């Protein structure tokens, strides 16, 4: 991987991490937040996005043709998927650690993101997986097809 591609990956990873945090405050997904205070999260997120963009564009010239070291659109798309998926994975893991005391054993199995309003990702996943492990033969068809 070239230095340019690595820089782009870092840009996407950091800005995705921040964008997910900001979006989670709007969605009320407290189980995904690293910092409990909504306004602080939004401010830090905005700051992180601004800072990483400034670093990316100030560090080196970025208007470069793809055959001279720039990134073509397809490669950009692939790197964006890697970077943003890594940001999602880090968000889920880190927020589960930070919010390990947020637990709600009653979370219904099809709640999805709504479970993350009052519990961490790890706790929600544990409850859901146990439920489906016990009930999947009878409930799965009903869940998907009504």
């Amino acid at each position, binding site marked *: 991987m070239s230095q340019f591609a690595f820089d*782009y990956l870092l*840009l*996407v990873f950091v*800005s*995705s991490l921040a*964008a*997910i945090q*900001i*979006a*989670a405050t*709007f*969605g*009320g*997904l407290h189980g*995904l937040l690293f910092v409990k205070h909504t306004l602080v999260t939004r401010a830090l997120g905005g700051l992180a*996005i601004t800072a990483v*963009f400034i670093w*990316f*564009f100030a560090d080196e010239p*970025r*208007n*470069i*043709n793809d055959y*001279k070291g*720039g*990134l073509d*659109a397809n490669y*950009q798309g692939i790197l*964006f998927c890697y970077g*943003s998926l890594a940001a*999602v994975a880090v968000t889920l893991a880190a927020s589960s650690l930070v919010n390990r005391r947020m637990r709600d054993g009653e979370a219904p*199995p*099809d*709640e*999805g*993101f*709504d*479970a*993350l309003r009052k519990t961490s*990702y790890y706790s*929600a*996943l544990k409850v*859901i*997986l146990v439920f*489906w492990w016990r009930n999947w033969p009878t409930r799965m068809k009903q*869940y*998907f097809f009504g």
Partner: protein
Amino acid sequence: MELLVSDYLVPVGMALTVLALWFSAPDRATRMKQQIGVFAALTALGLSSLAVFVINSVYFRPRPFVDHDLTLLFYQPTDSSFPANSVAAAFGLATVVWSVNRPVGISLLLAAFAWGFARVYSGVHYPSDVLAAAAIGIIVGILVLKLRDLLGPIPVWVIKAARLICLA
């Protein structure tokens, strides 16, 4: 202007916005609408690029800096000038997002417009390249929205499967 015309500022900003739409809805019904919109937006982006690829394969227009004496603010692309691929993809994506979240969609349409203007100003496209690309993007976006009603169950199943592991 060199920043705005870049291949990285507007595209990454738009992609981050689409990523944020996945997480940001305040209630279940809006979330389902926005998450289906994310699938539709990505489809519109892909189909807009495909439409431009098909047009490029039958018609080649040299870039403005080839035929005119210009102060170029960007690198010299070698592909066809007409229509502007990046602008078509941006308008396709923004049109679909506009249908699921008006304020966010309007912001993305403005970003797409600013990006198109920057590419003309920087000497890499003629205005007609950008106008045609915007038309292609908007038309593809509208077609994808029509198609979304036909293919509705597929993204709904994917979202329901993701909901089982708290990812939607």
